[in-house]
């Protein structure tokens, strides 16, 4: 019987692998997700056939409660709130791994060093993922302030706590896993560390931390796999762990910063934003009517969305304007910066929700070489990712970050609520350019105003 379970687990792992493979194209992605889900269903069914399961009452309660919560959350969440949703799901995965390892240690304690070490590693990563994700969720949903939270001695404190965890783990294993006080302290410290390592991360660095927490949740499952000696957990956990690490790297690269810098520098807080030279020149506001005249004459339009588009829920209005411009004979492209928004691919999902065909979404590397041929570049709620200072001003805190070179377009229209600076807390040199015009106001209302101009 046990062999059959192992064979079924192998099939599940295969389904996950091919499911992820099919995610490499939007055409097959949905099928891939279904395949992956059926692999999960198979794993669950064969686990229920396991002889070790004696009591189904609690299983029914747990599965029903979890399904109701999960399904409701998945159906009701707004697409603009997707980053916080993913953070919460990450957290629940971490919590599950932590509790499974804890329960395994209670039910079948073992004096073996390796077994006890994996239990603690699993508990540690799971707890870190859990509280880290809760903090990330709080920041993303605006329930906690989004700016970095720093206090003196933060780094030494974290270091001391990590050393304490290492010391206690060694002591716990040396004592044959019998000393539960050590266990509880490690659990508490790990929960605390999840909070302490996430609060210094600022809003716009969230794509990195979400990807990293995703990786942690996989590694936690993997460690639990070692605790339970279960191959499907190990395979799957390491797949997800690797996936999160790759995404983390991509996000860091897109900001030209190391992971260490993202995690520890408190970027965007008042102390790190050095005073820079005042930018010479003045900004030139433009009215909706004049913008309409410019757009009507444009043959080529590039739209650069940012987090502000998500805040204003302007994605549908953006697409409506895009369609009108196309009907008017213009070529419309949507240029997406890898770290625009609050999670990897955030803008793509929002525009997909508004029915923008994915062929029209172009990556930074593809739009920059042709930016000079663009008549009007429309910037909607983006700031730092189009700041030419990143390329031109070595004293700028964001110097070296790859940007969408909007300033090279013939005309740049910046839609913005006010002159407030972006996440990095610096002035945007783009706004002061000769070819830039500022269109102030709520992005959605302004876009609707432009649509009305075209229709009227």
């Amino acid at each position, binding site marked *: 019987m046990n062999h059959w379970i192992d064979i079924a687990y192998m099939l599940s792992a295969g389904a996950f692998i091919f499911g992820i493979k099919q995610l490499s194209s939007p055409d097959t992605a949905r099928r891939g997700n279904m395949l992956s889900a059926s692999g999960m269903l198979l794993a669950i069914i064969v686990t229920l056939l396991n002889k070790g399961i004696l009591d189904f009452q609690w299983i029914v309660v747990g599965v029903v409660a979890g399904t109701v919560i999960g399904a409701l*959350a998945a159906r009701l969440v707004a697409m603009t709130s997707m980053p916080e949703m993913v953070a919460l799901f990450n957290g629940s995965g971490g919590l599950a791994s932590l509790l499974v390892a804890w329960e395994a240690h209670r039910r079948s304690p073992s004096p073996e060093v390796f077994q006890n070490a994996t239990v603690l590693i699993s508990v540690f990563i799971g707890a870190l993922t859990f509280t880290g994700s809760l903090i990330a969720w709080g920041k993303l949903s605006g329930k906690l302030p989004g700016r970095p939270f720093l206090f003196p001695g933060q780094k030494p404190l974290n270091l001391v706590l990590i050393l304490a965890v290492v010391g206690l783990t060694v002591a716990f294993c040396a004592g044959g896993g019998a000393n539960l006080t050590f266990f509880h302290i490690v659990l508490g410290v790990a929960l605390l560390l999840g909070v302490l390592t996430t609060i210094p991360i600022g809003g716009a660095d969230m794509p990195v931390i979400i990807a990293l927490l995703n990786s942690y949740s996989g590694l936690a499952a993997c460690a639990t796999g070692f605790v339970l000696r279960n191959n499907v957990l190990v395979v799957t956990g390491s*797949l997800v762990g690797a996936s999160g690490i790759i995404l983390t790297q991509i996000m860091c690269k897109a900001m030209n910063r190391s992971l260490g810098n993202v995690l520890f520098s408190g970027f965007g807080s008042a102390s790190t934003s050095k005073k820079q030279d005042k930018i010479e020149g003045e900004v030139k506001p433009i009215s909706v009517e004049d913008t309409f005249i410019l757009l009507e004459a444009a043959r080529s339009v590039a739209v650069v969305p940012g987090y502000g588009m998500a805040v204003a829920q302007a994605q549908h209005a953006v697409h409506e304007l895009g369609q009108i411009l196309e009907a008017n004979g213009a070529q419309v492209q949507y240029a997406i910066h890898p770290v625009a928004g609050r999670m990897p*691919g955030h803008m793509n999902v929002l525009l*997909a929700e508004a*029915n923008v065909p994915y062929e029209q979404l172009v990556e930074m590397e593809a739009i920059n070489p042709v930016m000079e041929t663009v008549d009007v570049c429309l910037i909607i709620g983006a700031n730092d990712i189009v700041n030419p200072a990143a390329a031109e001003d070595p004293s700028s805190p964001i110097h070296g970050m790859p940007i969408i070179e909007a300033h090279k377009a013939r005309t740049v229209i910046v839609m913005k609520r006010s002159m407030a600076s972006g996440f990095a807390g610096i002035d945007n040199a783009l706004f002061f350019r000769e070819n830039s015009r500022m269109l102030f106001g709520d992005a959605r209302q302004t876009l609707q105003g432009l649509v009305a101009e075209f229709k009227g």
Partner: protein
Amino acid sequence: METTLLIYLFFIFLLSAVLGFELISKVPSTLHTPLMSGSNAISGIAIVGALLAAGSGTDDTLSRWLGLIALIAATVNVVGGYLVTDRMLEMFKKKGDKR
């Protein structure tokens, strides 16, 4: 036997991590959000352990609660993760696709 099993587990850990790196680097940035929520749902595989924990029939009260909460958390992760990923992927349309 025990050592053989562990070496075997480390072996598949190594291979799947390499496979993961290869697979994920081929996912286009357009699909990064569904990739995250989808891989997140996959990491809910801890549900396998949670089922064993919740169904152990133990008399230990704390163990029971740990198992139950683990199962709820893992089920939320799996069900919510897959459904929300499907909801997002459904929206990715080509030009000319009808809704």
